């Protein structure tokens, strides 16, 4: 009897305990007074701002441009190919073998459209005396590249349609090259030999032609194909095959149109025009409290145009040298280096640009970085010919400003 009572009692109690053990941990609401961890804000004025121009940097655009468009003159394009093939990693030195005979080479560019509306003739040059470096994708431009180092014309071509299937056609520009061209690549002892070509329109055209570049996300990059035969002996052919080499760098050398008054009097950015802007935020002797976290340090710009623009991004960095804010200036070289550690890329939303520079603002607030201003430029993912203008410091309502929000422990 006693054992039964004990077991029953124990069972009831343990079940009760387990039922009550299901903890409900709802937060208790309390007043904000006397609680630690706080939020603080501060805003800093942009006291100096100016746009400037440097030669267009077209090395990272998705297309190679030919012809003319909206005042832009696309002079020529430079393309450099990889030293090893896509398949089998075959280097150009492979063709030095006496049992390997190169029959021909083809350089092909994929046209942006699937039909040929207006035909044009293109011509190809290369750089047999170019050494190990002909052009730099990030630095070459219409002012610093010497076109005369290129060879004579080695091939000409016109666009041709290639039927992929019954429903789809692709248009390519295929240059056929003499097999002797490969000698320039294979005979050199320079491992990083230029392997570069210059492609241009044979005749000036008022139209524009876009071809896929090596930076295109979804497309077909420029390709150099080497067709060759493998011999088992001097007379017996073992195999006839080819190797493809993809472009690793390319750039359109373009001449921008004259800069407009609006471009020079606002904070404008454009890749093809070479427009960039610099701003100086007066942060004074601001000190960020120790152990604080900057939630955001946004420099806010208002766009001049009121129309909508899709997915326009602006890249910004802190500068490593003082800026010249006196007047709009065109430079032959960009005079302002930036600290790449503090890269930001910001999308324009509702015609407002809010560049969050919280990392460098934190360093400035902790006196670990000297505030020399910020540089704005168009992202390579934008339409390179788009120009976006922001109001400068003289606009009464829409002047730029920096707003810092930070959390203190």
């Amino acid at each position, binding site marked *: 009897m*006693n054992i039964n*009572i*004990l077991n029953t*009692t*124990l069972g009831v*109690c*343990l079940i*009760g*305990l387990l039922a*009550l*053990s*299901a*903890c*409900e*941990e*709802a*937060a*208790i*609401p*309390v*007043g*904000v007074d*006397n*609680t*630690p*961890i*706080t*939020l603080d*804000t501060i*805003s800093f004025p942009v006291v100096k701002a100016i746009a400037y121009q440097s030669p267009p940097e077209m090395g990272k655009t998705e297309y190679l441009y030919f012809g003319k468009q909206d005042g832009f003159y696309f002079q020529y394009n430079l393309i450099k190919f990889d030293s090893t093939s896509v398949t089998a990693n075959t280097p150009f030195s492979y063709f030095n073998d006496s049992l390997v005979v190169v029959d021909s080479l083809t350089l092909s560019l994929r046209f942006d459209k699937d039909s040929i509306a207006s035909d044009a003739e293109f011509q190809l040059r290369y750089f047999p005396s170019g050494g190990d470096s002909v052009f730099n994708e990030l630095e070459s431009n219409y002012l610093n590249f010497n076109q005369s180092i290129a060879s004579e014309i080695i091939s000409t071509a016109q666009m041709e349609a290639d039927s992929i299937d019954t429903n789809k056609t692709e248009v390519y520009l295929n240059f056929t090259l003499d097999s002797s061209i490969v000698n320039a690549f294979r005979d050199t002892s320079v491992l990083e030999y230029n392997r570069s070509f210059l492609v241009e329109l044979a005749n000036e055209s008022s139209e524009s032609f876009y071809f896929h570049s090596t930076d295109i996300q979804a497309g077909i990059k420029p390709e150099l194909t080497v067709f060759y035969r493998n011999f088992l002996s001097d007379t017996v052919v073992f195999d006839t095959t080819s190797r493809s080499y993809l472009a690793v760098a390319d750039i359109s050398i373009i001449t921008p149109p004259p800069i407009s008054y609006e471009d020079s009097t606002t904070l404008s950015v454009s890749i093809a025009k070479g427009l960039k802007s610099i701003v100086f935020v007066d942060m004074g002797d601001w000190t960020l409290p120790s*152990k*604080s*976290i900057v*939630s955001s340090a946004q420099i806010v710009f208002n766009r001049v145009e009121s129309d909508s623009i899709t997915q326009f991004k602006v890249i910004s960095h802190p500068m490593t040298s003082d800026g010249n804010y006196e007047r709009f200036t065109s430079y032959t070289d960009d005079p302002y280096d930036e600290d790449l550690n503090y890269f930001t890329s910001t999308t324009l939303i509702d015609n407002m640009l809010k560049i969050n520079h919280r*990392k460098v603002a*934190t360093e400035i607030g902790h006196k670990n970085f000297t505030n020399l201003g910020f540089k704005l430029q168009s992202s390579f993912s934008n339409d390179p010919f788009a120009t976006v203008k922001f109001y400068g410091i003289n606009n009464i309502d829409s002047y730029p*400003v920096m*707003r810092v*929000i930070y*959390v*203190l*422990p």
Partner: protein
Amino acid sequence: MFSRNRTIIFLLLLGVLNAQSVFNAYGLGLSKSTHHTASAGAGSIGLVPTFHPGVSFDNPATWPGLQFTYVSGSYSNRNVEIGSQVSSNYGNGFDKIQFVIPIQNRFAIGLSLKPVNDHNAYFKTDSTRINFQDRDLIFNKEFRSGGGILAGSFGFAIPMNDRMGLGFSFDKLFGSTRNEESLILNSVHYRLFNIKTYSGSVFNINFAGNFYDAKNVIVTGYARVSMTREPVSGTQYQFDLFEDINDNYSFDTDDYPATIDVDTVKVSNIYAPSSFSFGMNTQFNNDLNVFGEFQLWTDQAINGKYNSIYKDQIGSKSHLGGGLVKFGKMGARPWPDRITMRFGIFKESYLLKNSGRKINEDGITVGFGYKFAATGSQLDIAYRTGTRFMTNDYKESIQEFTIGLSLGDIWFLRRRGKQ
């Protein structure tokens, strides 16, 4: 018997979370006054007998009154409601596990493990909206703290004469706590952690004496002096504030900034409890006991740089309580006669060190104990209801259900030799 005991004690240890209280965010939180279920049922601080006539598990000086060796565990479930808050907070955890061996009705030794304080708190502020140059910033804060200090205790009892006894106990204090402060700005959490470990020790001198023994009434007195032997010191690991971008409560590579520092700080003399308590019990010939207790408790720590959510600490506490206990009879044939009934009422008052503000707590308790088996095993249940409030500030309603199981066995019994 002890195999089943171990299983039950393990079950009792399953939960270690006490219901939260805003007041636990002051310093190390509120100190616990009651540990054993029998004491909880009478609202006692453990001085006067509540388990068995003449015996309190929380007072070593009374242990020689035990007739058997006991393994005992107490486990509580607590419900806390804040003001007019609709939802309640539930928590549970063990209050004490204990092992006591009486020796020849004159001596006793015991071991126990019990929580010293309650540091569990989880609270948040209402949303605050500020306009920063035409941009609305909406933020609120959340605070959590948990863990606490445990006392591993060794005690023994010795007689002074046939009417008085002394009990000594040494409490080794140890444990860790964790505080988390976060500010939520537009749904992004900014978190600040610190973890602390503790070590210290306390010793207690307990007294029990029979002052008046007449035919119809017995008056007994009890006292305890607790002193800090080694003030609690510890190590604080303070993590820098970070933006918990992926909201996973811990710092990782997805969060901002990319790296954070952890400051390791040695803190000393942050908790040094001492107390003086006394109580009186009057036992009438119908087994009814009437008792009263009083305690003054102070934290004499001198290091005011203890880092807690609220920048204040519990500095002192007083307890005044009284109640009735009617003990059941072991071995009584009708089962209702084996039931011990307890009733108590108490008032506690905490004083904050820096601000001088008071936290007041009132409570009413009832409890039952049921004796079973020939070795004095006992199942105790206690219920407490009360309020805790700070003047012109928060008010909490507390309900607590505690269950304790004390299993007796015979140790040091002279066995008869084989014939």
